[in-house]
């Protein structure tokens, strides 16, 4: 049993320990910068940069992209982009220490890799649209919002989790 546990690469931190550290990190982030954490904002900067490079006139004429384009400054020159680069390094290091780095598709044995990837793409698209409508994702809107008691953060959190439980039945084959 002990040996088995040592070989198991899916042994993670105690969730309360991880949550406690994450809470301290949120406090530190607000204390230093006055704002919370985020994730989807960096990807938005990426999309704005790509569209602005490929079709600059189109980007300037679009009411949404143009909010994030400033003359003489790249949209990538953004706090959340640097934060996201840090996330990639931090996650990589944690994975490296525990031997979890491997190129693979993770899926339930009941479904194929192809099905997993198709659903991952659909899920990503939906999450991308939803995060723009709500002005932030689970990190930026829900978690950082709740840390300062923002009403919108609580509403977004309840909507994400509530809907998740409502639709979980239809996606059960993918997970259990």
């Amino acid at each position: 049993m002990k040996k088995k546990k040592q070989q198991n690469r899916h042994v993670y931190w105690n969730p309360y320990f991880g949550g406690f550290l994450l809470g301290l990190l949120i406090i530190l982030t607000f204390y230093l910068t006055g704002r919370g954490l985020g994730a989807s904002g960096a990807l938005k900067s990426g999309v704005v940069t790509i569209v602005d490079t490929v079709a600059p006139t189109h980007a300037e004429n679009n009411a949404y992209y143009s909010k994030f384009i400033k003359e003489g400054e790249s949209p990538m020159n953004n706090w959340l982009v640097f934060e996201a680069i840090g996330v990639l390094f931090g996650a990589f290091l944690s994975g490296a220490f525990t031997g979890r780095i491997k190129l693979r598709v993770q899926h339930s044995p009941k479904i194929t890799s192809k099905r997993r990837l198709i659903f991952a793409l659909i899920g990503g698209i939906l999450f991308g649209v939803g995060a723009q409508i709500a002005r932030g994702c689970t990190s930026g809107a829900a978690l950082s919002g709740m840390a300062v008691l923002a009403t919108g953060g609580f509403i977004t959190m309840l909507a994400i989790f509530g809907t998740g439980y409502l639709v979980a039945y239809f996606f059960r084959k993918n997970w259990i």
Partner: protein
Amino acid sequence: MGPLIPNGIISSDWNYIIAILIGFAFGYILEASGFSSSRKLAGVFYGYDFAVLKVFFTSAVVAVIGLYYMDYLNWIDISQLYVHPTYVWAAIIGGMIMGVGFLAGGFCPGTSLCAVAIGKIDGMVFTLGLMIGIFIFSEFFNSLEPLFERSNLGHITLVDSLNISPYWIIFIFTIIALVAFYFSDWVRSKVKKVFY
């Protein structure tokens, strides 16, 4: 008094360096807590793994108690902190779409970045999907703008919405979290184990 960078106590030249360091810690904590695994994340919706609920609510409770305590000690001015604006319908509809996206894709943006970092191809495809989703939203922004701008209540908190003391709200929120932790352990003991 904090926040340090907006008040000029730390020069804003440090902003991006701090961003990378904070991101580094964020990514490390998420990955070490198992959030690079979609099957672990999805467990919260099927009762076989409540790590999402525990990490998420523990961090929210710790953060809100800590920030209000620092405000009480005059270490930070809570009124200077950025409060996510409340657009009621955008928050509900956007959150619902994210909920479906989460069950289909098994990640959210922060966790998918962690999955990308450790080589999960499903995480990479999800991240590509996120960018496509953001692109679709932007291209259809004119039709979505009424929903996006509707029912703006500004930068309000539960203190404004419920009109009770923040300390009571934090106390009640903490109790709810503790009950949820206890309840989740009970559910997990009843549900068939899933190995992943």
